[in-house]
């Protein structure tokens, strides 16, 4: 980044619909990480969804409306951060494409796109934090979600951060970069194909013989966790933010409540 970073940048947290609705712990972990990194964080209540389901189904007019709402809600912040490569990528890479024939909105979309980041990229490449040093005695494997990996080039950053987690040993799967078969609505529209892809992913994860699966996108993680439990595995599945923020005392994704809580 060429511009100077404000000393205590004001970050708008775009928590993403999946985290908001199904796994608030990821939101709180994100909040903690951002604050640890010296950011002042706000959570606008007007946020809903980034519009990706509509966008990937070809409904551009609804996507445009939702995008406008996101732009209006978040453009005042220094940065917009989302704990998801797919939603982050939607705002930073795809919003522009929606306003080709509308100069004013195109400009506003571009402005927002330039300051929107996926959480790990933001912590690693923008803020360059050195405040990550949690504890987690476990072995883990990392799933590279497609948009994060191929749209936002997230590959080494999460692994570098995980090196600072005391007690955590990372074991790479052979197919960590292969799609897990989630694909948003794809997984419900084409369940058989999705299952086939998912089983390959799960097989690869199982052969790492680690205790934990980590990733940066809740959609993929819910997909993977749901199949793991369906196949009788009790492997712990978590969003990387939970581990980096040292917030792993609650149950993993799709895991039962801990009785002592």
């Amino acid at each position, binding site marked *: 980044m060429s511009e100077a970073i404000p000393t205590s940048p004001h970050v708008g947290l775009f928590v993403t*619909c999946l985290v*908001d*609705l*199904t*796994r*608030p*712990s990821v*939101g*709180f972990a994100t*909040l903690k990480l951002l604050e640890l990194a010296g950011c002042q964080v706000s*959570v606008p*209540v007007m946020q*809903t*969804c980034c519009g990706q*389901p*509509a966008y*990937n189904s*070809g*409904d*551009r007019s*609804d996507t445009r*409306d*939702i995008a406008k*709402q996101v732009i209006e809600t978040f453009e005042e912040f220094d940065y917009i951060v989302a704990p998801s490569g797919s939603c982050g990528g939607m705002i930073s890479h795809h919003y522009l494409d929606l306003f080709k024939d509308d100069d004013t909105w195109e400009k506003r979309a571009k402005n927002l796109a330039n300051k929107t980041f996926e959480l790990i990229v933001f912590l690693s490449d923008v803020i360059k934090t050195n405040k990550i040093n949690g504890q987690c005695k476990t072995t883990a494997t990392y799933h590279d979600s*497609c948009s994060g990996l*191929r*749209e936002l080039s997230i590959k080494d950053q999460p692994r570098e951060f995980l090196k600072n987690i005391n007690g955590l040993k990372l074991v790479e799967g052979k197919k960590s970069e*292969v*799609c897990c*078969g*989630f*694909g948003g*609505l*794809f*997984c419900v*529209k*084409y*369940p*058989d*194909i999705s*299952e*086939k*892809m*998912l089983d390959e992913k799960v097989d690869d994860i199982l052969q790492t013989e680690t205790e934990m699966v980590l990733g940066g996108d809740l959609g993929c993680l*819910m*997909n993977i966790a*749901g*199949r793991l*439990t*369906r196949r009788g595995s009790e492997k712990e599945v978590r969003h990387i933010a*939970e581990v980096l923020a040292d*917030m792993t*005392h*609650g149950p993993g*994704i*799709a*895991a*039962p*409540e*801990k009785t002592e809580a």
Partner: protein
Amino acid sequence: MEMKTTTFKENARTAIADETLQIELDRLSFGFPEKRKKAVDRMPEFEQLREQARDIKNHVLANLDLYLENYEDRVEKHGGQVHWCRDAKAAREQILKICKAADAKTVTKSKSMIGEEIFINDFLAKNGIEPIETDLGEYIIQLRGEPPSHIIAPAIHVSKAQVEDAFRRVHTDLPADRNLEDPAALLQEARGQLRNKFLQADVGLTGANMLVAETGSNVLVTNEGNADLTYALPRVHIVIASIEKIVPTLEDASTILRVLARSATGQDMSVYTTFCTGPKRFEDPDGPEEYHVILLDNGRTDLLGSEFEEILRCIRCSACLNHCPIYKAIGGHAYGWVYPGPMGAVLTPGLIGMEDASDLPNASTLCGKCESVCPMGIPLPKLLRSWRTRHFEAKPTRSLGQITLKFWAWLAKRPKLYHKVNGLIIATLGALGRRKGRIKWIPFASGWTSKRDFPAPMGNTFIQQYHKGARGDTSGRRLREVKK
């Protein structure tokens, strides 16, 4: 070939259940990508070449009429003929006319996707002319009465045992007790069968990897050398190619050749690369006496200038198929028409219409692997999404899924209501499943729960908790517990 695009989901299910096919697909998905990676790693300038290749094709597409006319002019100067064909029917009839004029009984063929696209084999056979595929893979599937399932490895879905069965069934003139265990024996047998056919054929039909405007040549790339015997031995050579195969110069052709084989099979070059330029000249010792080029449009000019134009840069290298997790799961036949994989999912709706092919662009997670390996820099996920948009905007009736999505979008545009409604749903799902952590079945969400558990929501949404003052006890307990 019967069109089966409309039964895509069923085709996919059958393919997933086919164990033999799955073994072959496993092998393919490991082999080709590994080889490509090695070839690309060996070549530091690969990225640069990709950009050059892309630019060449973009330039051609922007000036297609000019280069096509140049090309035609060159072909005619060398004594060949160019036949412009608007659609498959016109192309078939033109080919038949040439075959009849040559009094052809048999036609040898080297692999051509355009040949598949116009269903030339069935048509020739119906008209009393025997088509003989000479590429080993194509020969095998011709014996089995199947369409290809891959662009460069058409019989990738067939196991060795199945090849042996087909050979025993068809080659009845050979001793029944012959040993066909060894793949080399199969190869030898096919070669023996084909040798005579090459010599007897009246017409040789080939495709073209490229057409070179400056020389009027067609380029043929194979690993078996069968294309060379196909075009050089018979009296008449017919080239079938679609209009976007043009490149301006030999130099351009060589740039594309450098990315083609590396992307396809991981070879630096394919074993045989041939440039055919017109019929045999007086001083040539051999070659065809007649040289015809069938230039096929078949829907391509409609793609030109549209949001799908970029697919016309495709050089059919198959890298996108080889790296596609969907192709790996279901193989080529499930796509239901000639072109499989990501490139097929983009091209097919353009050629046969989105109505009949609507599953193809939808059955993708848009994971982006294809784009990352495409030597021509074709943004395949973007093009798949563009088909979805076109379809969505053109179709007045909505499926249940689309209505649900519309409702979601409607809700997302009303944040207050969104948080209320979703808060209630989440509280219910949370209450149902939180203790166990998962829900095994949810009505109207069986697409999800038929294959995997639904991870139970924690109970309160993040926004609710945050705005009531919670800041980060993330033990999974609900707000009530957090605040006490």
